[in-house]
């Protein structure tokens, strides 16, 4: 067995026996890591608070055949404002769910990891509703399936683009339109996000098209993952639609 050190963001934890947990983390150097953390369910355990979903930690682990074992961990960040506000927590949990789907064990992912840490940090302070959407659009680019937004995804024709279809891989012109109809502002916002202007988009305050941009981003990610996102389906409508 060998020891290694890495950073990580905790994606999820499950109970193991009386007081232990299996912790799944996204790490830059080792991809998705599954590791046993001993004794963390006891309320007196100090390692427990560190290995909660959303925590950004450094850790020292033993490489195991099936599971690694966490021997030390220290918190780098665990934004309180995410935990105390459902409107921030749901997007944060959605990001964890997406990364859990795309991360691969033992496959380094420095770019995706940096994006996740940055997005969680932004989510903790930003008033914009587009942090999750921004994360999704940029993730698709990192995954090599950036949406086609510069011209019609089907015929290459120019503006106005009036629809979005994840199956076609992007925005569509009037002649080719299918899928979801979209507002001009939505096309503009997605263009700016994909084009590297996310920071300014987030600083601008609410846009009329924010919820549409978010909905399309989630649709596109679901198409890429080939599955529904459980977090948003279960919780995003909380309180507005009821159970």
């Amino acid at each position, binding site marked *: 067995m060998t020891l290694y050190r890495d950073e990580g963001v905790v994606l999820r934890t499950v109970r193991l026996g009386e007081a232990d947990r299996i912790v799944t983390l996204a790490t830059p150097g080792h991809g998705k890591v599954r590791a046993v953390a001993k004794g963390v369910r006891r309320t007196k355990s100090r390692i427990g608070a560190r290995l909660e979903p959303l925590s950004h930690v450094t850790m020292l682990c033993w490489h195991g055949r099936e599971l690694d074992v966490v021997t030390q961990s220290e918190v780098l960040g665990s934004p309180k404002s995410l935990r105390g506000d459902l409107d921030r927590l749901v997007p944060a949990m959605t990001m964890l769910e997406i990364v859990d789907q795309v991360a691969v064990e033992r496959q380094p992912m420095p770019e995706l990891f940096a994006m996740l840490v940055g997005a969680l940090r932004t989510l903790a302070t930003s008033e914009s509703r587009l942090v999750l959407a921004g994360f999704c659009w940029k993730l698709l680019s990192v995954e090599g399936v950036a949406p086609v937004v510069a011209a019609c995804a089907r015929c290459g024709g120019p503006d106005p683009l009036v629809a979005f279809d994840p199956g076609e891989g992007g925005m569509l012109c009037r002649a080719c339109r299918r899928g979801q109809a979209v507002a001009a502002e939505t096309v503009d916002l997605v263009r700016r996000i994909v084009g590297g202007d996310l920071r300014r988009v987030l600083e601008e305050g609410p846009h009329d098209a924010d919820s549409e941009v978010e909905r399309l981003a989630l649709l596109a990610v679901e198409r890429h993952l080939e599955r529904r996102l459980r977090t948003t*389906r*279960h919780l995003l409508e909380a309180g507005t639609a009821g159970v």
Partner: protein
Amino acid sequence: MTKEDAVRLARAIVEVKERTVLCSVCFNIGMGERCAICADERRDGSVVCVVEDPRDIVAVERTREFRGRYHVLGGALSPIDGIGPEQIRVRELLARLEPEHVAEVILCTNPNLEGEATAMYLARLLKPLGLHVTRIASGLPVGGDLEYADELTLGRALEGRREAAT
């Protein structure tokens, strides 16, 4: 232990197991249709303490701070693991509110991320119904499990409960 003792013990365990059922009101573990707490007329039915697991009831009862009734969700929200509101007993909780004249709901889920998410979700659901919705105070170590909290800490957390965040 003699062989006869062992057989007797095994029979006793089987018997307890067979007689143990979930309370039809609060889903606590009990011996009959209603658990001992739901059957106790002296308990205050207007206050319901929502917990994740029957073992959490044992922990809260140890504090001797609480004289109301309980509701066991049977878990906490964890969408990434496929556990949404339909997988825990949210509907059953809503169905109890009117017939039992519930006025206050104390959200006593674990002080970890899933427990916090569950508490905020329930608060958002319950507050518009005009209920007083409170959350046990912090002071419980983050990331721990309620059932391992000592009764002093948990008692204080219950006493110091505050308006639930949504």
